[in-house]
């Protein structure tokens, strides 16, 4: 029985879980940014003019917090230059590969041997070499997460909530590859060194829960935990609370309370890297919104967004917004020539109909933001003080502890831009800390010089 937590909202699901994962034609060119994870950017391992095979490692970095990047198609490197990153928005060094259409596979990574499949370190090494990152959106290198949790983590939680509206990638993976998924979870569990993995799945995926349970998950050390349907059930802290009743400390990580959370698609990627020797080069993308025909498609990383949209028949109605990821925590896209990256789970094309913003947002002090905040913060006050740049009160009302789930903003009848303001506030606090630190250092240096 999962544990309850405070707050949360119930947006319309808008999901299309019955659409089987389809494949689209491969793009003539892919644009792969050298930064598809949190941590140090990769250095290119290839030169312009090199021929690369599908799955060949083309970028890496020796820094501990990093995940290597692989070619998602076979072909010729035609450029290594700054290109726009679809989430960051800045120009980021990227590798452009001209697709030869052959998908010649790379054989650098062999499937692990049965002995290796039981060796935690061999699995961990393969997870890193396979370029696996958190596919829920954070893109945190999975190997680093597992390694960092060793010795601290006693409970492994697999995140199958997929609580954001429109998204079906995890649900489709459960239905289409249940056995591989369970095997992938087993690998993560072995690498983490725990006996049981709790697999939290929202009850709106009952067919997937039944299917997984029919495969005897216990033999893989997996326990399925059906969870209440509520956004943001799939947030890390909420998953930890729901499965273990432990609360992650403000500013802390799940490993601080002995938990690690790994997402569904990540586990399947681990399976493919270990059992098949296939690095992470593609993912299921849920396409939705009123301006496009809904679909769940398998897409290679680096595929330009416009190419995906065109392959699916283009916009069916006048477009207002293109959103990457879920509608609650995703990003607005402003340049459809960017290549798809690892953490993007959805491509949503919205018309004016979905836009409920107003010209003059007004707080009516209804307190509904407080009622839904899963972190039990007070968005109404955080908003007020952030706009005033009152740093003392911003700290007092814990602006930095907001994890930007968007529940308050979704629920706000006055249509205030709460979450975007908190994002700005967090950036302001960071910039100020940096400034104060620089100032203090300069003063210390001055004093030193005076002596």
């Amino acid at each position: 029985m999962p544990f309850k937590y405070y707050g949360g909202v119930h947006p319309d699901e808008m999901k299309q879980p019955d659409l089987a994962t389809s494949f689209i034609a491969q793009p003539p060119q892919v644009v792969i940014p050298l930064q598809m994870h949190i941590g140090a950017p990769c250095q290119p391992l290839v030169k312009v003019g090199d021929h690369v095979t599908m799955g060949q490692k083309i970028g890496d970095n020796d820094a501990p917090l990093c995940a290597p990047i692989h070619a998602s198609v076979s072909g010729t490197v035609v450029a290594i230059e700054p290109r726009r990153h679809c989430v960051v928005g800045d120009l980021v060094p990227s590798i452009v590969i001209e697709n030869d259409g052959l998908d010649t596979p790379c054989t650098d990574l062999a499937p692990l041997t049965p002995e290796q499949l039981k060796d935690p370190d061999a699995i961990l090494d393969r997870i890193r070499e396979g370029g696996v990152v958190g596919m829920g959106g954070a893109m945190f290198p999975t190997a680093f997460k597992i390694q960092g949790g060793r010795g601290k983590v006693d409970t492994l939680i697999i995140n199958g909530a997929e609580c954001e509206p429109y998204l079906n990638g995890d649900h489709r993976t459960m239905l289409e590859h249940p056995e591989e998924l369970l095997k992938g979870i087993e690998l993560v569990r072995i690498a983490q060194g725990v006996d049981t993995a709790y697999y939290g799945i929202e009850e709106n995926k009952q067919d997937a829960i039944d299917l997984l349970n029919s495969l005897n998950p216990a033999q893989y050390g997996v326990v399925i935990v059906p969870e209440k349907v509520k956004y943001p059930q799939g947030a890390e802290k909420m998953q930890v609370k729901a499965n273990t009743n432990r609360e992650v400390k403000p500013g802390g990580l799940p490993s601080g309370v002995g938990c690690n959370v790994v997402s569904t698609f990540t586990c399947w990627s681990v399976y493919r890297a270990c059992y098949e020797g296939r690095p992470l080069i593609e993912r299921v993308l849920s396409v939705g919104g009123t301006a496009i025909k809904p679909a769940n498609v398998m897409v290679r990383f680096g595929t330009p967004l416009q190419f995906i949209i065109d392959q699916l028949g283009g916009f069916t109605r006048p477009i207002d917004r293109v959103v990457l990821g879920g509608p609650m925590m995703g990003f607005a896209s402003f340049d459809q020539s960017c290549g798809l990256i690892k953490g993007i789970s959805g491509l949503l094309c919205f018309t004016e109909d979905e836009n409920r913003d107003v010209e003059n947002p007004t707080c009516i002090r209804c307190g509904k933001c407080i009622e839904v905040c899963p972190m039990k913060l007070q968005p109404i006050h955080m908003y007020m003080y952030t706009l005033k740049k009152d740093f003392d009160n911003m700290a007092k009302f814990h602006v930095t502890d907001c994890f930007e789930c968007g529940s308050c903003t979704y629920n706000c009848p006055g249509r205030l831009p709460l979450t975007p303001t908190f994002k700005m506030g967090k950036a302001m606090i960071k910039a100020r800390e940096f400034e104060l630190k620089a100032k203090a250092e300069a003063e210390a240096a001055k004093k030193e010089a005076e002596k």
Partner: protein
Amino acid sequence: MEEKMLYHVSGAPFIRAKTDTQRIMLDVLIALLPAFCVAVWQFGAAAIIRVAVSVIACVFFEFAYRKLMKKNSTIHDLSACVTGVLLVFCMPAGVPLFVVIIGDFLAIVLVKQLYGGIGKNFLNPALAGRAFMLAGYAGLMTTWAVPSALKTVVDGTTMATPLTYLKAGEALPEYFNLMDMFIGKVPGCIGEISTAALLLGFLYLLVRKVISWRIPVTFVGTVAVLTLIFGKSGYGNVEWMLFNLCSGGLMLGAVFMATDYCTSPVTPKGQLIFGVGCGLLTVLIRYFGGYPEGVSYAILIMNLLVWAIDKATPQRQFGISAQELKAAKQAAKAEKKAAKEAQA
């Protein structure tokens, strides 16, 4: 390139719940409908005319003020309509129209718009408007028309309300029984007479999640508990409690006035304190005050405390246990004390 710039770029989330301010205000108006029906049943056209005039006046004043001050128009959010209805709901059915209109002006312009409009005022506009009118036109504001249900038993056109008898500690006349007071066959302000109709509105607001149970339940609960404990000579304790719950503006105040978003606390804990405070003050005024009715002043006084209550009842953050919070508070206190001693 140009086409790309047409895309609307903003921060997440990209979807919003259907309920906006206008919908909330519409829900409040719908919740007031049963009480309005009872008012029309008991006071006839007089009720319809006063409600209509009040709503039109409020919307006009809000529109005119915002226009004059060159601010964006806010009449579409329907909050002015709600103020108009609520203000006239706490006036007697026979009150002259000029009193209604002056009350509307004070409520909308003085209490609401001068402080910045919806969400910024610190007093409930309808109640403040009523308080001004009660001070300015005490006679007109306490002259009660005879409801149609009592026309056959009462001579004349005006009569005393049950609350007047309760205040004086006199036994209620025979034609006031508890059931009639619950249904609304009694004299009183236009919208307050029917406890049943107001409870129906309360249920609707709860189902629509416009308000939470916290303020109305703690408010009415406090009044119930206190009147049950202290009673009054000449009445049975339970009887006295039920009379108190079904008379005056208690239900209208607890369901529609005290829950006004802008003038009630935003924190759940604060809402509980606010409700208890309103109930306590209501009972105090009903027992010891000069007026028979204490609901409106109780709420107005608590309105002034909202900011302090909000500050005193912060949410306990996720990940912080009650013990940890207590320890942190004690540590902060000890630190302050140490700093003081060091200064001394």
